[in-house]
């Protein structure tokens, strides 16, 4: 059953070469919509708030596979509330990405949509895999489609960005594999049989002595922290984000980064809880550095896309901070943040892509006051910026607040008996306070970006007129540099800054119905998750509760007194 979810996009990708070029996007749309429908069926078909349903391994399907003997490799899938949410996010972004690419991608469309679908299948596979090697296979396999998408359809510096992206992630994840194999060896030594089943590895990992756990923690975290990305390892991300085509950026920000946080949540924390508790202050510090440093860099960006890219570094910092608080509030906030960041940042990238298709520049020095030209676009831009900043009432607020609150409560001094769940990660008010400045910085950079780009006097690139009659889709070309398309490249298209007349077949000044249709679902979800996050909370609560218990028992094994926590209290507090 779960295999269907992975196979739908993959099979559709296999059909791509058979379809005429013009209608490839329709096929891709069909495939992604099918996945979405299937996911929706999973979503409504089960009572996910019921802990029995939300346990890891629910709906599990395991295929025996005799590839390597004595290795215990199995094709096993399973799903719980957290992975289902992330799968839903993936499935939702799929059709949106296809719809958002129709006018932007005009060359090698088969390659584009084919790899997009493969990427979708691989990402879904990561969230569903319950075998470490299978997880690794999917995790790695997301690299190839993304590499192709960036290096074929990206902007000027795309090849460099693609290679950097690939090498960074590949190098990290090989070390992660070594860590996993080490745990598998410990398991084999204990049980006499090799197995890569995640549940067994988690048990084996927990049984390891603390020092050994620390090494495994380092190995596992290296791969995931690069993917997230955590502060000193983040340098690939702005480049890849900026150079990727719109759909690529959306998927990168929306789902691929979540592979890292999901890996930490589903593998690192349960497998080496003691080491995670020991190193939580370090991880939280790195996360906070990422929050503040990423925010400050955003402040000075002139390139809107780069700004949003760096804002991802800051946002994922919150996610990691919440994760390493180990209490219910922090973990819930962290998981919700994965979803919310995917929605709001994905939407921002879509908006920037739509603007770029019209102006061929993302430079804040050249464009501004676009509310006059594109009121609908501006509305969405402001809306999603607010969601991203964390305006109360929109989705960002809920998760950001929970993450910071989790960090605040994770200090030893603040654990009031019986009230606050959590293992006492050794964080505390100071962590929360410094992270809180990140929220202010976020408001500064987002608002100044919106202020310059959306409001104020209208600024358009010199020589830009809406009557430019050529090459809208050519930014995806693979012939050479795209420099010519920015700024001065359109001088030949005629002057007439206030032109306003639209040639048939080209993009109108403001958003088309298709584009609004792409943005609308995201906007609705942002609003719904901001006002009424209960359904999503209910889905993740059982998993989070299980995780909190694991962390607490690890904490008690370290000798520090642990306090039993109640998850419900925090859920209430969040609202």
């Amino acid at each position, binding site marked *: 059953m779960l295999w269907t979810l992975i196979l739908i996009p993959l099979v559709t990708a296999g059909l791509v070469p058979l379809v005429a070029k013009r209608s490839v996007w329709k096929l891709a749309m069909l495939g992604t919509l099918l996945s979405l429908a299937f996911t929706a069926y999973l979503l409504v078909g089960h009572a996910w708030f019921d802990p029995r349903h939300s346990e890891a391994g629910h709906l599990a399907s395991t295929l025996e596979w005799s590839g390597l003997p004595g290795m215990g490799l199995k094709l096993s899938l399973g799903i719980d509330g957290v992975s289902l949410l992330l799968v839903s996010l993936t499935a939702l972004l799929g059709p949106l990405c296809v719809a958002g690419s129709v006018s932007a991608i005009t060359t090698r469309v088969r390659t584009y949509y084919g790899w997009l679908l493969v990427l979708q299948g691989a990402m879904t596979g990561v969230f569903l895999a319950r075998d470490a090697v299978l997880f690794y296979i999917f995790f790695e396999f997301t690299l190839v489609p993304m590499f192709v998408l960036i290096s074929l359809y990206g902007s000027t510096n795309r090849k460099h960005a693609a290679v950097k992206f690939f*090498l960074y992630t590949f190098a990290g994840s090989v070390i992660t594999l070594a860590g996993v194999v080490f745990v598998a060896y410990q398991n*084999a030594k204990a049980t006499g049989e090799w197995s890569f089943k995640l549940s067994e590895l988690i048990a084996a990992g927990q049984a390891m002595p603390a020092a050994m756990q620390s090494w495994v923690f380092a190995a596992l975290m290296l791969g995931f922290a690069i993917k997230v990305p955590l502060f000193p390892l983040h340098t690939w991300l702005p480049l890849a984000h900026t150079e990727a085509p719109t759909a690529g950026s959306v998927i990168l920000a929306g789902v691929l980064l979540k592979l890292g946080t999901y890996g930490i949540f589903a593998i690192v924390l349960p497998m080496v809880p003691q080491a995670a508790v020991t190193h939580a202050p370090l991880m939280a510090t790195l996360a906070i550095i990422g929050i503040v440093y990423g925010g400050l860099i955003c402040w000075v960006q002139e390139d809107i896309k780069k700004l949003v890219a760096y804002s991802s570094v800051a946002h994922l910092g919150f996610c990691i901070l919440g994760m390493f608080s180990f209490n219910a509030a922090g973990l819930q906030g962290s998981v919700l943040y994965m979803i919310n960041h995917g929605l709001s940042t994905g939407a921002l990238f879509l908006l920037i892509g739509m603007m770029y298709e019209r102006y061929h520049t993302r430079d804040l020095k050249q464009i501004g006051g676009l509310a006059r030209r594109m009121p609908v676009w501006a509305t969405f831009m402001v809306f999603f910026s607010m969601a991203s900043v964390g305006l109360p009432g929109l989705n960002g607020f809920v998760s950001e607040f929970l993450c910071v609150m989790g960090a605040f409560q994770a200090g030893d001094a603040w654990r009031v008996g019986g009230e606050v769940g959590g293992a006492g990660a050794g964080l505390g008010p100071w962590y929360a306070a410094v992270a809180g400045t990140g929220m202010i910085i976020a408001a500064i950079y987002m608002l100044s970006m919106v202020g310059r780009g959306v409001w104020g006097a209208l600024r358009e690139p010199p020589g830009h007129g809406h009557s430019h009659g050529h090459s809208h889709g050519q930014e995806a070309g693979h012939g050479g540099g795209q420099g010519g398309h920015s700024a001065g490249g359109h001088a030949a298209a005629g002057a007439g800054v206030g032109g306003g007349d639209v040639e048939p077949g080209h993009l109108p000044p403001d958003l088309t119905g298709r584009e609004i249709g792409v943005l609308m679902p995201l906007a609705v979800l942002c609003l719904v998750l901001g006002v009424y996050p209960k359904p999503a909370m209910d889905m993740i609560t059982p998993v989070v509760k299980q995780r909190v218990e694991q962390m607490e028992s690890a904490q008690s094994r370290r000798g520090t007194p642990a306090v039993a926590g109640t998850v419900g209290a925090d859920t209430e507090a969040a609202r």
Partner: protein
Amino acid sequence: MIEKLASLWPEITLFAAACVVMIAGLSKSAAVRRLCSPLAGLALVVAGLLAWHGTPEAATPLKHLPMYGKVLTCGMGLLMLLVLAGTVDRGYEAAVARGAKFDPLRSNRAEFYAFFLFSLTGVMLCAGADDLVWLFLALELTSLPTYVMVAISSRRDGALESAVKYFFLGALGAAIFLYGFALIYGGTGTTNLAEVREVFLSKGINGLAMAGLLLSIVGICFKIAAVPMHFYTPDVYQGASASMAAFLAFTPKAAGFFSLMILLAAVGWGQVGSQGLPSPIYEVLWIIAVLTMTVGNTLAIRQRSIKRILAYSSIAHSGYMLVGLIAGPGLVEMVAPAAGGVQNGGFAANGLAAVLFYLMAYGVMNLGAFSVLAMLERREPGATDEEAARELDDVDELRGLCLSRPPMAGWIMVLSAMSLLGFPPLLGFFAKLPLFTSGISAGQVSLVIILGLNSAIAAFYYLRLAAYPLLEAPDLTGKAGQVRPVGIPARTLAGVASAVGVIALAAYSLAPIAERGARFESPAVMAKPAPKPAAAESTRPATTAPTATTAATADAGAALAQ
């Protein structure tokens, strides 16, 4: 000696076929000459079947290694035979067909195919060696024909140059390990490896023998293209034709690894719980492995020539395999003494199985990469002459191969390069995974980390090999000449077969056979003086059920000996 002969039927088959091919290739009739390569293929099939059903030799600790080695050699031999099609005499045969008189002195076909078979015979003999003299002769039988094959593989001057370089450095390597073998003899008083092992087990390894062992290892490093004997690799690969380079990347490497395993089995691995190898050997191997991986990968990054990239990658892969060798068979102590006290660690923990499996995987995926070079040629603009065509060499010439017609070559390159990188879910990944598991089982965590980092470095250049055909636009101006199929279907077939293998073998691999080949007999059995073959049979009835064929071959062998 006579019972030994019974296990040599595969080698005898190949040898006989080589003699027949050498005569047939000189025939005046073109039809008979054309039989050379089918004959070689037939011989390989027969030899492979004979090896599959052969009796295991009891005298060596790695009892099943000969079976695996011979079957692997035959299988890879068939693939390599396909790639090697048309390497020699292509232009000359065309001239003869146009009416020129056939001159046996100008034809190279007979030597080429005969030497091909001789070389593979050498690999097989390596896998079954139980004596130092035997081992030396087998190693040289593997290498000597390749020197000549390199020289005649291409009409260009580079082939001669690289053949000479290969020959002299090969002779140096041979001298080093021969000297090592001599010192081992000096230190132990015997050349029989089983006896050497007994001496080592009972009296320890004295200084002379240790020096001999170290020299032998360093000398054999030439065969597997490992540091410090790796310098020849890029030059020789570049000078030889692509098809020949594919042959060179596998054949001596296989022979070298079989020899190292046999040699090291005589030295250590017997004790449970220790590193398995005596400390100087362990340290030297460790350093060689790390240097080999790192040197190979880092030097490959800056290369523009595809053959040089693949040559350095060949060096790096030897380093990977050395990790498995260092990990050893992963013996574990059995609680029940009835089982012989010691048992192999299973596929996941047995480093030797990992090496044997990796050897197969490397052979297949590397052949895929080379076959792309062999199945394409570049014509200079405006040239119509046969001689104007030359092989692809620069990575730029791979641009857009997946977009050209037919796109097959490009996709074979993409799959092979990604598999060589060890990218899941291709064969290379499933071959590297056992190296990881066995290395970590043997406590070699740092070595495994270095292996992992090296895989990441390797991504630099494999990514280029995969991205250029897949993503770059083809050069349509035709200014630098035109890349087109060379028109030898066999080579395309080999490429397709290896590309299919890269995917299919990953799904259902031959790893069980590798595991069987790498089984290490426990020292308790080894310590007993000359166990009877029948007794050895009865201990492992499941693996080698004696069939009618084996009985027949044994009888025939005995008859032949009389």
